[in-house]
């Protein structure tokens, strides 16, 4: 049967070859060699030997993939590993049969809550940090593939395999697969701590930067716990108490989070959300604490001698007063004696 697609493989191969070799300027040589083929056999073969098809060459008889990107497991795995490597703050939610309309309502409320977080102010050098409110996303993940992605990020180091020849070291390679299959999973490693969370249907909320203010807004909306993280009131945010939004929010359970490679539970996340002033505020608190600690140390060391000095000073003044009084009395008595002496004689 003739090929279904009407273009010859030979022409597509030559087109592909031209694309790869045009930058090297060998096209001119090709044309010359094809004309004088009888004399330049040796040179033609050596030229052809150095020509190769590009790595992304797809033969024209292979139809394009009909699968949607989010159903292609390989693509999903790569997107998950990229997410894990680039996201410092991830929250895990279990979602129990949340319908499409409820997801829309939940995301709407999340956007509204994040819009209320005050915009970042300019730093001391005049530059304004990026506002991350728009980049915070809540996405449903394929739990098993996410688990494999976590394993790759944790246990596979591409640089360790650089010396090997003929070994691809990308996340989908056989090298990566062998490394993670053989890796011993320590319970105290990040994967070991997160793995119990990876059960059932999971959704992930990703923050491009660690911002306690935004985290507090998210916790107040999706997993409120008064008094520190109260849900918005009916008057201030009637959309939050809309039945669809409420039923969607009730189906979401915050199970844990990962911040900078460390795993936190609900209480830990609430603690991070409660940090005032963000990371800069935390740093300034630390500095002031260190400074006052130095002061306190010197006060404590000097305190004993100071106390002794104060006590002695107090005693001295007491003695002075007492002796001054005694001296006064003596002088008065001396005067009286004198007077008596004078009167007597």
């Amino acid at each position, binding site marked *: 049967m003739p090929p279904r697609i009407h273009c010859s493989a030979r022409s597509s191969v030559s087109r592909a070859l031209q694309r790869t070799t045009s930058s090297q300027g060998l096209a001119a040589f090709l044309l010359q060699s094809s004309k004088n083929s009888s004399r330049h056999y040796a040179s033609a073969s050596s030229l052809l030997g150095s020509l190769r098809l590009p790595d992304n060459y797809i033969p024209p008889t292979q139809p394009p993939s009909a699968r949607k990107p989010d159903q292609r497991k390989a693509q999903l795995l790569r997107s998950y590993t990229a997410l894990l490597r680039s996201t410092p703050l991830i929250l895990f939610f279990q*979602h*129990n049969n949340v319908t499409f309309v409820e997801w829309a309502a939940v995301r709407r409320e999340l956007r509204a809550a994040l819009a209320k977080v005050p915009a970042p102010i300019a730093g001391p050098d005049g530059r304004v940090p990026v506002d991350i409110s728009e980049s915070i996303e809540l996405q449903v993940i394929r739990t098993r593939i996410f688990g494999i992605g976590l394993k790759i990020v944790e246990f596979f180091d591409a640089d360790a395999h650089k010396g090997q020849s003929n070994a691809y070291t990308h996340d989908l390679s056989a090298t990566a697969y062998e490394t993670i299959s053989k890796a011993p999973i320590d319970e105290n490693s990040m994967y070991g701590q997160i793995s*119990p*969370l990876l059960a*059932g249907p999971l959704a992930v909320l990703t923050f491009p930067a660690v911002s306690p203010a935004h985290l507090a807004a998210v916790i107040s909306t999706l997993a409120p716990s008064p008094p520190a993280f109260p849900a918005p009131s009916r008057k201030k945010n009637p959309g939050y108490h809309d039945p669809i939004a409420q039923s969607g929010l009730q189906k979401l359970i*915050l199970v844990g989070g990962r911040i900078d490679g460390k795993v936190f*539970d609900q209480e830990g996340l609430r603690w991070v959300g409660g940090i005032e002033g963000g990371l800069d505020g935390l740093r300034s608190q630390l500095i002031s604490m260190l400074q006052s600690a130095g002061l306190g140390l010197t006060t404590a060391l000097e305190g004993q001698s100071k106390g002794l000095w104060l006590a002695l000073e107090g005693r001295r003044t007491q003695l002075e007063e007492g002796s001054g009084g005694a001296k006064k009395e003596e002088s008065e008595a001396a005067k009286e004696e004198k007077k008596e002496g004078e009167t007597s004689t």
Partner: protein
Amino acid sequence: MHNQPPTMITRFITEVVTKFNPFSARSRATRLFLSSLPPDARQTGITINNTVLPRTSTAPPLLLIKFKDGKEMKLDGEQLGIKGIVEEVDRHSRALQKQADLTD
């Protein structure tokens, strides 16, 4: 579709109370039970109450199910697994279904 949670008869359930520590592998079955309730569970009258225990808690996961005839079933997810839980719940639900069919 692969790995679908087992479908359950949920018509006769009135209340579900759960407590689990998500960082413990024992809570897996309890969490899967929660995810196997239908999307309109709350609208059809099932009260679902869940508490997430802190990471350091060693308490076993709690799963308490109340049925329309007043029966309260406390199931141990760790021992039974999700299949066992669904089996127990379905067994009672089928008995209630038979009763309902007979009285109709």
